């Protein structure tokens, strides 16, 4: 896209302006050129990306305008009002929330050009090949090996809990390139082609009955060096960008603190709807607990709102690290309360059939599903215990635990 994307009716705002008025003009121009009623969905999404209205805080040419992120709602609301199709974030959460910010920060120009557009439109689904059977919270201990092989790399190992691997075209992959140095220093970050014949994806059935995640076996998988993200041995630094974004993405979704949220959304809204609609279910005990959770959810929402206001002023506070903790706890307590509130209906469960879902929706399906799925909220993307460690050490500056594993070469660590 040319840097001066024309905005015919931009008026006084001028075509380059990326304030609210300029964005409204650009949105109107997009809608005028590509009527959502007649334009095929994918064509519309591509045109939106090319107009810089996909994620306006991304740079020009990569789906954005280098504009303040807070103004994205101006575009989103304008497009939603016109009935424009969306890119269904529930299908491509890992691409949007984790791969994209990492590509943006560490990718080469070539990589950004190749990957970001189909990632955003949803043409290509992404997954995250980080966790392994022997490396979860201690991710840096992972054992999957990547060995130089001509102008590329050969990857062997096993990954686990890989959400969306069964749908994915690409993966962000963390592998060990040097076992002779301490564990954090020997990692490199790659983009892995999930259609490579050496990639085998097997479903892992979850407590909800379905298989949202998978185990992934990597046998002699070829990764060209052009698909390396960041320098060799710099994988941990790159991965931290991904993990930070993952926590914000999970913590900011649903019940607490998503942008522009009003009261009683997400899990809380489901419970309060039932509460008002079915007075016969109310008890004093549930009433007290509901009011307590209502207050906590409202506090979490306002904390998220305050964090966003700080970001807008360019002074991010450390509250972000805490949001995922509140989000997980609230989701779990509210969904537990909902099952109890439903009385006899709480004894039923929608469907145990093993399926491989296309979307992840924490607040979807029935109360029993929500109760069970919420258990994952305090595990995925860093467990609550690990997040508390991070807050204690990085935010409060409390002294670290004594550790024996940081300076030994990875190959000499006890396993």
């Amino acid at each position, binding site marked *: 896209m040319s840097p001066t994307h024309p905005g015919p009716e931009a008026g006084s705002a001028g075509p380059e302006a990326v304030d609210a008025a300029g964005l409204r003009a650009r949105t109107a121009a997009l809608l005028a050129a590509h009527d959502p009623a007649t334009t095929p969905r994918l064509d519309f999404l591509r045109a939106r990306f090319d107009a810089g209205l996909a994620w306006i805080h991304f740079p020009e040419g990569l789906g954005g305008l280098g504009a303040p992120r807070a103004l994205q709602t101006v575009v989103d609301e304008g497009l939603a009002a016109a009935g424009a199709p969306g890119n269904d974030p529930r299908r491509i959460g890992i691409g949007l929330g984790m791969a994209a910010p990492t590509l943006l920060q560490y990718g080469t120009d070539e990589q950004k050009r190749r990957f970001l557009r189909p990632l955003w439109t949803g043409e290509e689904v992404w997954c995250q090949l980080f966790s392994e059977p022997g490396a979860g919270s201690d991710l840096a201990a992972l054992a999957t090996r990547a060995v130089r092989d001509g102008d590329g790399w050969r990857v062997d190992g096993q990954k686990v809990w890989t959400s969306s691997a069964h749908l994915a075209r690409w993966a962000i992959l963390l592998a060990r390139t040097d076992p002779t140095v301490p564990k954090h220093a020997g990692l490199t970050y790659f983009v892995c082609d999930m259609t490579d014949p050496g990639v085998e994806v097997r479903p892992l059935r979850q407590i909800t009955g379905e298989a949202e995640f998978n185990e992934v076996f990597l046998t002699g998988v070829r990764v060209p060096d052009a698909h390396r993200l960041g320098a060799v041995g710099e994988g941990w630094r790159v991965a931290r960008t991904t993990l930070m974004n993952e926590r914000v993405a999970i913590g900011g979704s649903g019940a607490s603190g998503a942008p522009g949220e009003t009261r009683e959304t997400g899990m809380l809204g489901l419970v309060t709807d039932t509460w008002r609609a079915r007075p016969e279910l109310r008890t004093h005990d549930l009433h007290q607990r509901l009011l307590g959770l*209502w207050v906590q959810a409202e506090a979490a929402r306002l904390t998220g709102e305050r964090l966003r206001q700080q970001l807008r002023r360019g002074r991010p*506070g450390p509250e972000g690290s805490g949001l995922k903790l509140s989000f997980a706890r609230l989701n779990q307590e509210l969904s537990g309360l909902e099952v109890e509130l439903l009385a006899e209906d709480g004894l039923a469960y929608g469907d145990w059939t093993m399926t491989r879902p296309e979307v992840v929706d924490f607040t979807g399906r029935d109360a029993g599903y929500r109760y069970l799925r919420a258990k994952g909220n305090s595990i995925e993307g860093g467990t609550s215990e690990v997040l508390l*460690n991070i807050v204690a050490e990085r935010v409060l500056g*409390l*002294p670290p635990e004594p550790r024996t594993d940081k300076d030994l070469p990875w190959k000499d660590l006890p396993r």
Partner: protein
Amino acid sequence: MTPPPSAASSATAPDLLYSEAEEDLRAAVRSLLTHRGAPATVLAEAENGRPYDAELWRSLASGMGTAGLLVPDKLGGQGATAREAAVVLEELGRSVAPVPYLTGAVLAVTALLGCDTAEDAVAAPLAALAEGRRVGALAVPLTTWPGARPTETVRAAGRRPLLSGEVTAVAGAAGSDLLLVPADTGLYAVDTEAEGVRITPVTSLDLTRPVARVTLAEAPGSLLAGPGRARAAVDAALLTGAGLLASEQLGVAEWCLEETVRYTGERRQFGRPVGSFQALKHRLAALWLEVASARAVARNAADALATGSVDRAVAVAVAQSYCGEVAVRAAQECVQLHGGIGMTWEHPAHLYLKRAKSAELALGTPGRHRATLARLVDLPGPQD
């Protein structure tokens, strides 16, 4: 006084941050308090039998002009809002300073603002309080909550009214110059020096904001507002007081967390700082998250009161449901994680615990405010 709700104010999102002017105000108050309100001084003040630190109050109230923050310029005040008063209260909470700010500069002042300020009988005492020349107190039990059914225990009789009756657990009464007394026929101003006024200090749980029993035996009062307006004025004062108390509770919690993090990072046992034990780290990290959330809800309440948002009653009820418990938890953790020294009279932790626990009861317990919320946000209980 909270201005009437307007459509415009309800539409805008609350500003949960601090403006530069607010940060400047904070810096000025904090610098005064570090010089004059160090914990040892606070403890000495609390023990000397005087109801508050008069010298500190003078610097804060008239010197810096914080007594009149909520009062419009033309009525002798600073023409600021609840947002600025909240910042002052955060700092006063951080230092558990024994000064009658919440009781005098918030509750009493707001009650007067709810009366007809065009009347000299109202405007004169209001200006005196705003300028810090006199100290006022609203004569209601500190446990009274916004929306509580009024239970005036004082009767007024005669054409030049004489007031009789008793009000218990009044905070800020001892040492005040002017009592605002809700009576059966309206709200009255009573000079504490006048005949028939007796203020009996109660040995209080909170050493830095003691309560007292007010006894009136045919004490002369001057009418500020008739019964209807008086009740509205008192209720508005209680709402503002409750909303701003959340900021004081935030300050209390913040000090307790910071002090405990500092101490556990230094104190060594088993060959390492006790703050490196994960059992303590997790507790402190969880507390940090609660304090961060308390800041958001307290800011929300202050902003709602400042803008007269239609949502202010909800914002206040949320803040009071949340912040009181956070302050108590922070103070309790502070005592526990200090070990033996936390249990001493010498260490300031107890001043914060006593303030936090009393403040939890003040202007409505968290449970009361949750009951209010149930009504406000339409979540009725089983029998309603």
